[in-house]
Structures are given as structure tokens and as C-alpha cells.
């Protein structure tokens, strides 16, 4: 079973995302900021990361840049999931190594379509 780390400072979003991703057959872990997510990844690298942008302690883009420098950190498929919906943010995310990008608000169809896009489901 493929694993997905859901990184978001909102407990509600994590819960909604968890339900959608579990229905798609993924095993879920959660982190509430980039630092916590990095600790998770160092312990057990997930197959995928669903990543919020704006979070306390360490935001999503900083996390992603750190992750891509970690041993094995090039492996996870990273899908941003954020309210930031302008082209500058999207380009910055792709340049930092994001594989896909979801603009909130999202629903199950959007998540499923994006995960199919990156070959995860």
C-alpha cells in the first residue's frame, strides 16, 4: 500500500484529505507543519506528500526545498494543496520540485484527477 503524508496546519483539512486519500487506497500519515513533516520523512520516506503552503514553523515551499536535498528525498511525489492560486506561486512550486499543484478549495474529484496525473493511483 502506498503511503501519503498530509501536511497542513488545519486539522479539518487534514481530516477531509485523509478521508479522500484513504478512499483512493493510500495509507495516511499527518503533519501540521513543514518541520514535523521533515521529521516524518527522515524516519520513513512516504510515496507521496500532499502539501499546504502557508504553515507556522516551516512553510510548504521551505519544506519541499529541504526534502529534495534529503537522501531519498527526490522520490516522493509532492502535490501542493494551497489557497495560493497565482502563476508565480505555481511556477515557484514547480521550480522547487513539486509534481502537481491543487488550488483550494478542492474536492475528491480534483484530488483523484491530480493523483492519476502523477501516476499515484
Amino acid at each position, binding site marked *: 500500500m502506498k503511503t501519503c503524508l498530509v501536511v497542513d496546519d488545519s486539522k479539518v483539512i487534514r481530516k477531509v484529505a485523509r478521508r479522500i486519500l484513504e478512499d483512493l487506497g493510500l495509507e495516511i500519515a499527518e503533519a501540521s507543519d513543514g518541520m514535523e513533516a521533515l521529521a516524518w520523512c527522515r524516519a520513513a520516506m512516504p510515496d507521496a506528500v500532499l502539501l499546504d503552503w502557508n504553515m507556522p514553523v516551516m512553510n510548504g515551499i521551505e519544506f519541499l526545498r529541504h526534502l529534495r536535498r534529503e537522501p531519498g528525498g527526490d522520490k516522493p511525489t509532492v502535490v501542493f494543496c494551497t489557497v495560493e492560486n497565482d502563476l508565480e506561486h505555481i511556477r515557484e512550486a514547480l521550480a522547487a520540485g513539486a509534481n502537481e499543484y491543487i488550488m483550494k478549495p478542492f474536492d475528491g474529484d480534483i484530488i483523484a484527477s*491530480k493523483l492519476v496525473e502523477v501516476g499515484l493511483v
Partner: protein
Amino acid sequence: MTPEDRELAAQICASRAGLLVDPEKAYFIESRLAPVARREGFGSVDDMLGDLRLKRDDRLAWSIVEALAAGETAFYRDRRPFALFETEILPTLARMRGGEPIRIWSAACGSGQEIYSLAMTVEDMRGQIPGAKIELFASDLSERALEKAQSGLYTQFEVQRGLPIGHLVRHFEKAEEMWVLSPRIRQMVRWRRINLIADLSTAGRFDVIFCRYVLAGLTPQMKPRLIENLARALSPDGFLVLGEGESVAGVSDAFQAVTGRPGLYARNPAFRAAA
């Protein structure tokens, strides 16, 4: 709406566009027709249909057909036909045609996602098919759908259905809360209103026809008509792409399925299109 009203709406769709509408689907019919009634200044759907019974208002009848015909769509819907188009259909035709135009038609294009997905594919693979001259056409029954499609404007929700993020970055700009396709892509497509069960003899000849999720929604009498119309509009060595689960089997012998390529059809050489 009374059962008679729903029956009338279904009958209008069947006679004008060969469209199969189940008169039992009260919620579907009412929810699609309510905005039409509002737009046309009627107090209710019942009033609108009552009026239509009294006068034969052709424009209003077509508005009803358009509202009931509209379907769901997405960029790169089902993915597989577009992969096939990119890796097999287009390279093959480019080889066969040399510099002669390759004409591609999205029949029943709705709000344009299908033809624009094809246009983006063509644009992104220009380097692999140098010299190929590709012409893109899109048609729909509905003027309103064509208007929306031509605008190239999509909501944030629409651009997240099937469109890879790299394509969004390459081909779209943000326009306030909407996303708009680049003029370069939009200008690749020519548009026309076409009723697929009418006489298509002036529609032209095409090398690839995408006609997906139309066949399944037609009345049994009109299915062979659609397929034979498409056969006449397709060049002898061209390809027809149908939707998932749609098949010409038992409908017409104008096409034969391409083995190992679900949804892809070639013209049956034995089929002689009547003039």
C-alpha cells in the same frame, strides 16, 4: 412540471437533435429548464412550455434542446484517447500526409475542453512533427456552449479537472478569478454550429473525428444516422474516436474497431457511403 410537459420537452429533443431524454427524470429536466425559463422571462418552466404549445417558437425550442443536451466534460477526459492521439494517430497521419493538411474535428465540443486538449497536444509536439500542417475544428449543437468554448475562459474548478499543472502554466493566464487560454491555442481552432444528425454533406472532410459521449445519448433511430454521417465526413484512412463504453456494434457497419485500441475506429472499406 406535468408528465405531459416533460413528454413535450423530450419530444422536442428527439425530433430536433435525436437526443434521448427520459421524461421520467423530473428533477433533471426541471433543473436544466429552470434557467432557460428565467432567461426567457417566463414565471416558470410550466409557463414556458405552455407558451411553446401555443406558438411554434423555433428559437425557444432550440434553447430547450441546448439546455438538455449539455453534458459533463473535463480536459483530457479519459486520458487514453489523447495519449493515443499523441503517440500513434498524429505521427502516423503526419507521415502519410506529408505537408498536406491534417484535419481534426471535435464533434459536440461542449465547452471546448476536448478540442483545446488536442490543440495543446499539437502545440507541445510541434518539434516532433516538423512540417505537419494541422487544422483543428470544433462544433456543437449549442450556440451558448460555442460561445463559452470560444472565450477560452474556465473556472478554477474546471482547470483542475484533467489538466496537468504544467499545461496550466504553459498555456493559461489568470484573469481575475478565472483562467484564460492563451490566444495562441485559441486561434488554432475554428468553430461552427453543427447538428450531427442533420445533413453533414457540407461539413467537410476530416482525418480524425473525436465524437465522444454523443452516441450513447441518442435515440435508437438516430444512432445509425450519426455513425453514417461521421463515416461520410471521415477520410477513407482516417480515425474516429468514441467515448468509453460506446460502440458501433449493432448500430452500423460503417466502421470497424481498431484491434487493441479501445474506442478507436477506422472506416470499414466495405461500407459504401450513399451520396
